[in-house]
């Protein structure tokens, strides 16, 4: 469950970093705060991976998962930016729900 939460938080973080760039989303967002929030979420996601698998394995899982999530966001989000926003909201809700369930 920690892995799923971490993955969802990573997804939200990566999507925010991607969406912070001007012109990528169908609406304007404050560039620096959104990017900063994204980076903070990406870093914070490490907590769930470490809690689930220990420091060494958790750090490896975080790194590899970041590769996966960032590639997915970078390649899929430009195709359907509105769907990417919806998916980010869903991932955020999922992360909260999983954390409450835990």
């Amino acid at each position, binding site marked *: 469950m920690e*892995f*799923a939460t971490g*993955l969802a938080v990573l997804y939200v973080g*990566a999507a925010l*970093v*991607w969406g912070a*760039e001007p012109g990528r989303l169908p609406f304007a967002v404050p560039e620096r705060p959104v990017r900063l929030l994204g980076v903070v979420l990406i870093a914070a996601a490490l907590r769930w991976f470490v809690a689930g*698998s*220990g420091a*060494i*394995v958790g750090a*490896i*899982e975080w*790194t*590899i*998962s*970041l*590769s*996966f999530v*960032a*590639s997915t*966001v*970078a*390649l899929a989000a*430009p*195709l359907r930016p509105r769907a990417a926003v919806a998916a980010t909201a869903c991932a955020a809700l999922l992360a909260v729900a999983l954390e409450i369930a835990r």
Partner: protein
Amino acid sequence: MANQKNRAHWILWDVHAWTGVVSGLVLYVMFFTGAFVLFRSELRSWSFGPQPPPVERSVEETAAPLLAARADVAWLFELGDDGARVIGGQMRARGQRDHFTIDGRSGALVQEWTAVERILWHLHFLYQLPFGFYLSGFFGLALVLAIVTGVVIHWRNIPSQLLRFRPGRAAKIVWTDAHKVLGTVGLPFLLVFGLTGTIICLGPLLLQAHTAATFGGDHDQAEEILGFVHADVEPAGAPGPRLPYDALIARAKAAVPGLEPEWIRFQHPGDANEVLNVYGARVRGEPFGHATVLLRAADGAVLAANAPATRGPGAIATAAAFALHFVSYGGTAIRLVHALLALGGCAIILSGFAVWLARREAARASRPNRWLLSLVIGTGAGLPLGTAALFAASRALPADLPWRVGWENVALFGTWFAATLYAFAPLPRRRVMRDLLLAAGALWGAAALLDLAAGFRPEAAGVDLALVAFAVFSFWLSSRMHVAARAPLLAAQEG
């Protein structure tokens, strides 16, 4: 100074491009099969189909009669149920290796009748080629070289282009963006797999080269430092008493708490000085935890062990390389992430070829470029088609068909070869790719349907789901061929 920098940049670009072109298709094969290799046990459960519940039969009851009957071969028994019973194995004699399974009802040895996971495992390490294992190490090294040169030539642009993918732009830009995004964001994954693969496959060669210089020619000592343990026991030349194999396996588990025994091997079987080698790829609670325990069969004394608690730095590094490469430290979810990244690695290679060919659009009529394009299509679409044919053949061929595993090999390599020939046909490239993808989609779907038709099995549901996902993706990709036709990769051939 600027000229020198420019020259260095282009030298690195050429090294990156040529390394990719020369090794790309083989690396594509290794990445594609690597995604499957991560799920070996799941594939094994899937390919053997519905099994009757096995009769309780200890390792001793299965192994001892076989060892006594064929003393002329080297036996290796694969264990199931945490080391409680024999599920299969291999016997080696005069360089020939035969694989077998154990009938769960009778306990009899049965010639292996399906080998989906083993065929893909062998292809991942290029075992089908002479010295293929070492060759795969050199290709791993080529991957590392391509990664390092790719990072250096794009170093200044990485921060600004890290997540930049512009699907609406010209095809050449789309391919370049995709190549850069997957290559840079996937860097940790690529680097870990390139390095660990190289260490695993070239390690034995490097060890031999270093044995004389560093260890005074003592090969055993060199291997021990890396965690490969030996028991230098001479045969007594006469039979003697020994403990039952189940008791010996229990002692190995006691010596290395958390050990999950995976296979056993024998040194001097039947002799008074018999040694049992117990190996497990996982040790519960240890991230990099494979272990080997060598026990004296007569009294169960531990002669040597490579276990997480007692490893030196060299053995820890070796264990970490294996664990990172086979993701034995993680559960299903992280293995799935790795598998998707491995398929992403395939996309990096194909997009790299697209970029390379696009840069040579001026020479698109040249024969080598046309051949290369056909080879890329033949392997890029042909290998998934061949793999789908392997899965479908595993379900469709009669269970008692003579030389059944051979036919499974024919299904994979024959279909792949036929697809490559088709890619050389004087037909529009987009039609060739669409046809190959449609055929692949149909075969992936057929494999899943044939398996489900034999009865739903929870342990096979994950593989069936993956087969359906491959089918849907293949059909979707084939429907996108009219869009992809805009790509320079295709335009180069369309003329």
